[in-house]
């Protein structure tokens, strides 16, 4: 039902069931907020978005109050402005005064609010809470002192990820976000996806920084630092530096990484091609033996951790192929380093990932002798951008640098790993080829593309139809698994990415990305697929060469150690 309401003395039309904030957003009036998240149920906790409504004695929160006919609203009356200002001042009273040393200095929403409300002095002098920083986790650091208890992290963790790893504990002014039994994030359900970091308005949640470790490695003459980057990184770096994403961005990034001091630059997409070869042959062999189907993909470390912790009975279905990051790391340490004349322990492998869970994955995958990791340090997109800025590299005036190592040769299929549905699409291309000996035609699987949480497709290979599904956001995956367990759904392959829409929206990406940014990141990946000549992993000459000279044929036991990993339930560790 359509009716009129009055906002700041102006008539505006509104619909029944809209909140005041919906209408304000539509007509372009901004109200500040700390707890509101687009697409989530409103919590109404921060009260920052309050407005004055005629006939209601108290101020009402615009995010959760519905419009009614002829409602008269004042969004910026003196009473409202005063209330908002005092609310921010109250938050600041218990907040640490260390903006200069804060990770979020300059990108902090509380800082922005304080500046916006023209707060120029500390009005309330309150005792700071004495809290310990939670550093237990290898991916995420929690500093409860900086928390404003907006509850966004909890809602993302519950509603999108479904991990339920954190919640509010304590009461009143003793409230804080806590983990179960106060054990720290490393001890329970957390899958390290980092989505909480993406929504945190302050520096209460940050990634465990490897920034200094990498800088030290770069300046250590005894080390041979090399770097690998995930398929989404070129697009994200371009976005951060306002460069139009084009084909050249890959070479620009390569040049920037070289300028940072890395001796060699690798594209993880190549390892993704290798993973696809292994996965596809694994799938075909499972199909022939009628065992462990549906096959679940294993490239996402958040998802893998969830299966290990919470659904260990699904472990046999998980593909044993290692994640591209680890495959690349193992290849570099075991193979490429010797060809470059370096000892494996001197090679320092850094990877740049849009992901915080990769930090955890890298830390837990030790080399055979147990001394060093296959990947020594993982940087998030944010850390890389910071590093490029620190070292004064002007991205816009760099000369693009073509690849100087053969191991950067990739197919566009491997590049599709960055987005939900992309991994599956790439895999199906090779599966089709392995079963029929012919290329999938058309090569694109449109049903698996687009920004949706669940995508399904039926792919025909020879005479058989394969039902496959790609889900993103762990909560959707949980629902899908429930359906499969209950016998209401049947698939041959299920691809899962824990972050909503996949790595393009990973927990290590730049903060504040909206739907427009996501679409751009997605387009960048699909554009590569359109433009490049080699669109399937099994045609990547480097891969074929590797298999010929160095590896046994895809899926055979000898490749186990290098390209596969046997995952076990956390209970058995």
């Amino acid at each position: 039902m359509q009716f009129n309401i009055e906002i700041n003395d102006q008539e505006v039309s509104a619909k029944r069931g809209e909140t005041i904030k919906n209408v304000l957003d539509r007509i372009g009036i901004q109200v500040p907020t700390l707890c509101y998240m687009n697409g989530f149920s409103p919590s109404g906790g921060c009260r920052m978005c309050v407005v004055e409504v005629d006939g209601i004695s108290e101020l009402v929160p615009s995010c959760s109050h519905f419009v009614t006919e002829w409602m008269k609203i004042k969004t910026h009356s003196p009473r409202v402005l005063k209330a908002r200002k005092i609310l921010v001042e109250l938050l600041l009273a218990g907040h640490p005064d260390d903006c200069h040393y804060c990770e979020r200095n300059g990108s902090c929403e509380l800082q922005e609010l304080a500046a916006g409300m023209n707060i120029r002095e500390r009005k309330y002098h309150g005792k700071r809470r004495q809290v310990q920083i939670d550093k237990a986790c290898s991916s995420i650091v929690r500093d409860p002192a900086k928390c404003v208890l907006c509850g966004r992290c909890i809602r993302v963790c519950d509603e999108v990820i479904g991990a339920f790893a954190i919640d509010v504990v304590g009461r009143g002014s003793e409230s804080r976000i806590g983990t179960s039994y106060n054990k720290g994030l490393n001890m329970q359900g957390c899958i390290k996806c980092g989505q909480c970091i993406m929504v945190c308005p302050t520096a209460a949640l940050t990634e465990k920084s490897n920034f200094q470790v990498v800088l030290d490695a770069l300046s250590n003459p005894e080390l041979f630092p090399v770097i690998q980057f995930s398929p989404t990184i070129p697009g994200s770096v371009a976005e951060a530096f306002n460069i139009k994403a084009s084909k050249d961005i890959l070479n620009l990034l390569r040049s920037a990484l070289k300028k940072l001091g890395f001796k060699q630059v690798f594209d993880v997409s190549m390892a993704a091609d290798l993973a696809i070869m292994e996965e596809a042959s694994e799938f075909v062999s499972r199909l022939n033996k009628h065992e462990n189907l549906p096959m679940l993909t294993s490239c996402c470390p958040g998802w893998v951790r969830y299966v290990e912790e919470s659904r260990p009975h699904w472990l046999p279905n998980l593909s044993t192929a290692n994640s591209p990051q680890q495959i690349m790391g193992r290849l570099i340490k075991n193979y490429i380093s010797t060809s470059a004349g370096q000892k494996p322990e001197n090679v320092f492998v850094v990877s740049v990932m849009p992901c915080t869970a990769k930090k955890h994955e890298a830390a837990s995958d030790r080399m055979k002798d147990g001394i060093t990791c296959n990947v020594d340090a993982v940087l998030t997109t944010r850390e890389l951008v910071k590093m490029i800025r620190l070292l004064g590299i002007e991205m816009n005036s760099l000369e693009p640098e073509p690849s100087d190592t053969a191991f950067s040769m990739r197919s566009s299929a491997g590049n599709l790993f960055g987005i939900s549905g992309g991994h599956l699409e790439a895999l199906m291309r090779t599966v089709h080829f392995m079963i029929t000996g012919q290329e999938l035609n058309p090569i694109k699987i449109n049903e698996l593309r687009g920004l949706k949480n669940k995508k399904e497709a039926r792919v025909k290979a020879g005479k058989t139809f394969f039902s496959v599904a790609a889900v993103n956001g762990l909560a959707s995956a949980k629902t899908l698994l429930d359906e499969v367990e209950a016998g209401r759904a049947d698939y041959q392959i299920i691809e899962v990415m824990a972050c909503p829409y996949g790595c393009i929206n990973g927990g290590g990406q730049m903060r504040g990305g909206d739907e427009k940014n996501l679409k751009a990141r997605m387009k960048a990946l699909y554009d590569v697929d359109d433009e490049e000549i080699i669109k399937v992993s099994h045609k990547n000459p480097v891969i074929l060469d590797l298999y010929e000279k160095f590896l046994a044929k895809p899926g055979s036991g000898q490749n186990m150690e290098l390209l596969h990993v046997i995952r076990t339930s956390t209970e058995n560790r």
Partner: protein
Amino acid sequence: MAILNTPENKEFLVEKILKSYSTIFDKANSDRLALVKRDKVIHPVIYIGTGTCGLIAGAGNTLTAVEQYLEKNNLDAEIIHVGCIGLCSMEPLLDVQLPGKSRISFHHATEDRVEGLLDAVFHHLLLEETVLGQYKHPGHEDWANMPYVLQMPFFALQHRNILRNSGIISPWSVDDYIAHGGYRSLYKTVLNYTSDKVCEIVDQSELRGRGGGGYPTGKKWALALGTGSDQKYLICNADESDPGAFMNRAIIEGDPHRVIEGIAISAYAIGASNAYIYVRSDYEQSLVILEKALSQAKEYGFVGENIFNSGFNLHIHIRQGAGAFVCGEETALIASIEGKRGIPQSKPPFPAEKGLFGHPTIVNNIETLANIPSIMENGPGWFKSIGIRESRGTKIFSIAGKATHTGFIEIEMGTTISDIVVSIAGGTKGNKQLKAVQFGGPSGVCLPVQDLNTPVGYESLRALGSSLGLGGIIILDEDTCMVNLSKYFMEFLQKESCGKCIPCREGTRRMRNILEEITRRPREDSSHETLERFKGVVELESLAEVIRDTSLCGLGRNAPNPVLSSLKWFREEYEEHIFDRKCKAGICHDLRTFFIDVEACNGCNICKKKCPENAIIGSVKLPHFIVESKCTGCGICFDCCKFNAIYFK
């Protein structure tokens, strides 16, 4: 309990009494009923008040002493456990009813006094000072020269409807409740009325919610009844957490079946087949009584499947709350029953549309529900005739603080607060001057003496900036420091805030800090500090306004009430604390300055030894002296001086 709880009685009471549409019975039935109701007793009956207040005062030991006495003297008497009649400060209460005689009540019947009391009563020789009074009954012979309980000032001004049975009948026996007219309303309602009709009757009675908000109960029910859903819930809110409030506990412990009957009728009215009673887990006695009552009601078929063959099913579940103040708020209470953290949700949607487990839910205060059986029995007109416009019926209050009589009372709406304080509660204890009345718990206000002529009612109290609240009254005398009291309430509220919204979580904390600053010992009495303190009070007001304006739930919105009202009426006390650094009542420790009266001090040296700050100097047998700069005002010397030589300003 010889007469109660026998199978024959069950049939008699249910078939002949409960299901009778008339209250006049033939001779055989009325004789038998008189026996059950103890209008006529063959053996002596001894009643002992074993509610929580009685037990705390020693009723457990009294009971043992009575049993020993009966055994020793080889007497055959029935012992009946009853709830509290309301005079908690006089507990333990022991009543004796001899055959043919009026029931007579003794106050402060502790175990050591039992023998004397029972000796006296069995020999018909009563000592007047031990007697509270006797209950007038047409069929009983009065005790000579003994006052009547219900004519005492404490009871005379009350209008006891919900509490009618409290302290009189046994809460442990469903038979006793039926014999006193119980469950007839339920029977009448489920067989004769539609749900719509019940909502209509309750709406006509103009009953309003007794939990504080005062929303018309009938309207709320009609809203839930009109919401289509295959599952609806009724929740009885007995999560009473105001400091100094204990009415809900008294209702459960005095007359639990009235609550169950009220719930059953209300559930019928909204079409709910499941009901929850939410009680604080620390009300241990209430929980035991309630569980017993519920199992009896199930056994008699008043709760369960197909009640009275009407096709109406109702299952009642008891849920224990952990005692969080915020769980009295309905959405937080619902979250708590669901097993989640008890935090309020934004309204709308209201629970009547989407509540417990997503289904339409009505949350009613226990007192509201306890009103329902009488309304259904006597009709809406009867209920409307009690009380005043916009506030019909009676209201239960608990009286705590410095009153002569503390306990709980039920008065007609419209009774003035001064009647409650002066006449019923007997004013302040020990001839101290009455200073103020704290009304409505932590969300209420402090009313000064000049406002006490206000009649009790929803609108009259709203006009004073308060709300009826749950019904806690705390009486404050001249020894109370209003600043300290405000600080106490702020402390309580900031601890009990759920922490969800910023104004309540951070705002109450800052308000408490400011009050702490005012009552703290001066560090250095520079004018700068005084200015800071003064600024603090100004900020109190602006903070209070914002907390009131922006908080999510009622707890937050009303949190500044105690401070604002005391600031309004007792501003000079705040100023005294700020500028003169004095607390007239001597409550704020930090502001006390102690002196030694040279005349009275005999130099015993004890205070000097006990002073933790070594602030007292002086030689033995010579008057001592307190060094003001060292004294922290702890008051140890004051407490340990045997010669009253130490005083403070």
